[in-house]
C-alpha cells in the first residue's frame, strides 16, 4: 500500500525509536523503553533490526557495575528518516 515508505522505518516502535534519536545525540536503552512505553524485549528486537540495517549504532558498556546500552543514530539512519518523512508528505499532500 505504501510502497515508497522504508519498511525498516514503517513500524510503529522502530519509528518511535528513530524519532527519539533524531532529537538527542545519544541515549540509553532505558530512556527509549520509558519514552516508548514498550516492553524491553520488543525494544531490544527493534534496536537489533535498526542496527542490522545500519541506521543506529549500539554501544554496550558498564556503568556502576550495571550493563549500560547506549544508542545513537548513524548518518544512514538520519538520511533514511528524512527520506521517510519526505515520502510521507507525498502521501499526505500528493499534489505537491
Amino acid at each position, binding site marked *: 500500500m505504501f510502497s515508497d515508505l522504508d519498511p525498516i522505518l*514503517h513500524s*510503529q516502535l522502530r519509528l518511535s525509536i528513530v524519532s*527519539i534519536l533524531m532529537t538527542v*545525540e545519544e541515549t*540509553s536503552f532505558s530512556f527509549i523503553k520509558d519514552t*516508548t512505553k514498550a516492553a524491553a524485549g520488543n525494544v531490544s528486537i527493534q534496536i537489533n533490526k535498526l542496527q542490522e540495517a545500519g541506521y543506529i549504532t549500539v554501544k554496550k558498556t558498564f556503568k556502576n557495575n550495571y550493563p549500560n546500552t547506549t544508542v545513537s543514530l548513524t548518518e544512514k539512519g538520519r538520511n533514511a528518516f528524512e527520506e521517510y*518523512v519526505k515520502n510521507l508528505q507525498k502521501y499526505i499532500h500528493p499534489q505537491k
Partner: protein
Amino acid sequence: MDEKNFTPEESLLIISKTIEETRKKIQENGHIIILWGSLIFTVILSQYILELLGLHKKFDIAWTCILFLPGAIYTFFYTWRKSRKNNIPKTILGTIVGAMGWLFGLNGFVLAAIFGDHIGNALAPVLLILLAITTIVIGLSIKFKPLIIGGIVLNLLAIGTFLVNPAYHGFSLMFGAMIGLIIPGILLNIAKKRGNV
C-alpha cells in the same frame, strides 16, 4: 506497540508525539538560573553592607568565594545527579547550555577575583555583557522568550553601566541578576509546570 500497517497520518503523529515526549523529558528547569541570580544578588548586596560596616576590603574576595564556590559545587552535583537519576540523554542543546553557564561562571570569577584591579571600573559592565551573551544564547537554545528579553535588557544595562558612577555599579549587577536570571528562571519553572516550554 504492535506492528500493524498504519497510515502516513498515523506515522506523522507517532513522530511528532515521540519528539514532543522526548523534548519534555530533556527540558531544562529554572532552578539553577534562579540559584545563580540569587547568589549574584546576595554577594553584591552583602558587599554593600560590608562596605557600610567598613569590612569591605577585608572580606571582599573571601565572601565571594564563600558563596560562589558552594554554588559551583552544588550546580555540578545537581546537574550530574539529575542526568543520572532521570536517565537524561545527551543532547547538543544540553551541551551548549551547560558550556555557556560554566564558561560565564569561570571567566566571571577569574575577571572579578584575579584581574579585578586590571579591569578596574569596567568590571561590572563587562560581567553584565558576559551574562547578557550567556542569557541570550541559553534563551535562544531553549526557545524561551523571557530569557531572550532578559538577556537583551542585560546587554543594554551593561552599556548603560559604563556611563554610571562606579560607586553604583553594584546596583546594576543586582538589577541585572533580578531581570536577567531570577525573574526568567521563575517564569521558566512556571512554564515547565504548565508544559509550555
